[in-house]
């Protein structure tokens, strides 16, 4: 740990106020989102607690605002701040799970392809190429559309969250696979890996203990940048109305709902979730950008 704080990464981290700020923002977002059930002022999912008479309250600093609702309420009387916190929770959860999913799939495929080489490599990379030809948002939409058609609506609502995670995750693995394969090819031919082979270590073990650690830093960079992509993809799907189920509104869902009130003076219903989304994604992007530069000093 001490080594970490002494490292170049930590140094370049502390050197950039923007990066520190975005890390703090990201952390606040994550904490606010993860612990929203504990710290949110209201529970927007508890239908029974909604008071329709409290609908359309502006933010508390406005003339008609209610101190009870800091950022105002939506058309059903939901507290916007709580809705945003819960929404961010859904957005982040989908984002993280999707990235983990694509990382696991992508890294595995990349390692196998790079290590085995030959026909396995050619086949796997051909699949990745084919998928890369399709924009990931389209893949996600298609997966969602197919599942929607394949399962009854009630079942779909129950598994919708997983479908979205799967759809976004599956749309992004080739990036990881390609990078990892590239690094694996390089590592594979290095002496220590050759040596490990010669002394008869199992391929699995070699990959895990020798190849994997060396490909982790590009993977980390891609994963970070992909997190922002995944969050945006989820928001986009939800905005289009095909993402997470309406019972678990994400930030994208909130923006879609708020969009209807944008011109009627109730701007806060769309603007606050929009700001939350942008701030979250921007801070993740800044972190990812910095991480890429920090792990790849020659690019600076």
């Amino acid at each position, binding site marked *: 740990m001490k080594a970490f704080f002494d490292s170049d990464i930590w140094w370049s981290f502390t050197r950039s106020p923007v990066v520190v700020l975005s890390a703090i923002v990201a952390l606040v977002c994550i904490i606010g989102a993860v612990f929203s059930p504990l710290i949110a002022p209201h529970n927007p999912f508890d239908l029974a607690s909604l008071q329709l008479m409290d609908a359309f309250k502006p933010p508390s600093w406005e003339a008609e605002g209610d101190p009870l609702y800091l950022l105002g309420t939506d058309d059903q009387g939901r507290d916007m701040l709580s809705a945003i916190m819960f929404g961010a929770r859904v957005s982040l959860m989908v984002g993280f799970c999707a990235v983990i999913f694509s990382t696991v799939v992508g890294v595995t495929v990349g390692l196998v392809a790079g290590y085995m080489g030959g026909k396995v490599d050619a086949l796997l990379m051909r699949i990745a190429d084919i998928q890369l030809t*399709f924009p990931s948002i389209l893949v996600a939409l298609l997966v969602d559309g197919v599942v929607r058609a394949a399962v009854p609506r009630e079942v779909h609502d129950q598994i919708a969250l997983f479908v979205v995670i799967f759809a976004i995750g599956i749309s992004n693995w080739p990036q990881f696979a390609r990078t990892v394969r590239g690094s694996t090819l390089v590592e594979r031919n290095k002496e220590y890996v050759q040596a490990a082979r010669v002394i008869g270590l199992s391929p699995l073990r070699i990959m895990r203990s020798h190849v994997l650690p060396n490909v982790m830093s590009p993977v980390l960079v891609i994963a970070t940048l992909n997190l922002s992509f995944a969050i945006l993809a989820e928001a986009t799907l939800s905005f*289009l109305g095909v993402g997470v189920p309406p019972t678990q509104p994400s930030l994208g869902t909130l923006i879609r709902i708020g969009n209807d009130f944008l*011109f009627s003076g109730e701007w806060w219903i769309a603007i606050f979730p929009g700001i939350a989304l942008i701030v979250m994604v921007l801070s993740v992007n800044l972190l990812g950008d910095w991480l890429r530069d920090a792990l790849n000093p020659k690019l600076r």
Partner: protein
Amino acid sequence: MFSFIVSRILQALPVMFVVSLISFAMFAYVGDPVAIMLGQDFTEAQRVALVRDLGLDEPFFVQFAKFVGNAMQGEFGLSYRLSRPVAELIAERAPATLELAFSAALISLAVGVPMGIYTGLFRHSWLSRFLLTFSLVGVSLPTFLIGILLILVFSVWLGWLPSFGRGDVVRIGWWSSGFFTVSGLKAMILPAITLGLLQLTLIMRLVRSEMMEVLRTDYIKFARARGLPNRAIYFGHALKNTLVPVITIAGLQLGSIIAFAIVTETVFQWPGMGLLFIQSVGAADIPVMAAYLMLIAVVFVTINLIVDLLYYAVDPRLRTGRGAGH
């Protein structure tokens, strides 16, 4: 040259095969067409008759071959939602999407490439820093929010530009074009910017990093050491080398414009294929989705082919048969 194209087309075949297989699987197995077409009250005889009519009792590969055969003639059956031939629907919508994508691509390239070159060359100027920050905000802004904000500012507050639709279109054969009317062009501006912005920032960042990569190469150092003027180094040597990878990735990015058009078209109620597709996803209208998938695959394969040809034109190493150094 000819054999190059042929080999590329041959390579595209498996892609098309896989895509049509997925398409077919969606078409044939998802959402049970028989149940959908029969509705509530039917007799067993009716069901069997329909199964036979649709050819669903035939072996898999026969059905698949028929599907591919029909698809090649543009025949995808009726939309479940609109009760109209899918091919007709798509043909009606395709010009809107393609014109929008074309305009967005033009914007993103015409602005993104110069910005990328500039920020790659003058890395420390304040303008570069500004553009980089701008690009980061650009990739962090979801497309739909950009669209909403543009509508709010330019349509509602300022009243300069239309907020939805294509304006007046001119028919040229079966193609409908918005390029020849004032209202069509005005209607194009906001959606094209919305759609192009993300690609613009991506292309800018791509060009920038490629430019920086190229500027670090030995042949650029050597060009400097030979005392060539900066103009010749940057725009002669560096740019051309930058373009090689940029062409590939920009080609793919431009392809994804067509996909992102789905979002833009929803926000601007742009009557293109994307709007059709999203309505179909919502309504589980499988024939439309399958046809759209096939069409997009064709578009992408075409884009890839064009990219390869450009690559071929730019990089002499490919022209001598075997690629050295790759």
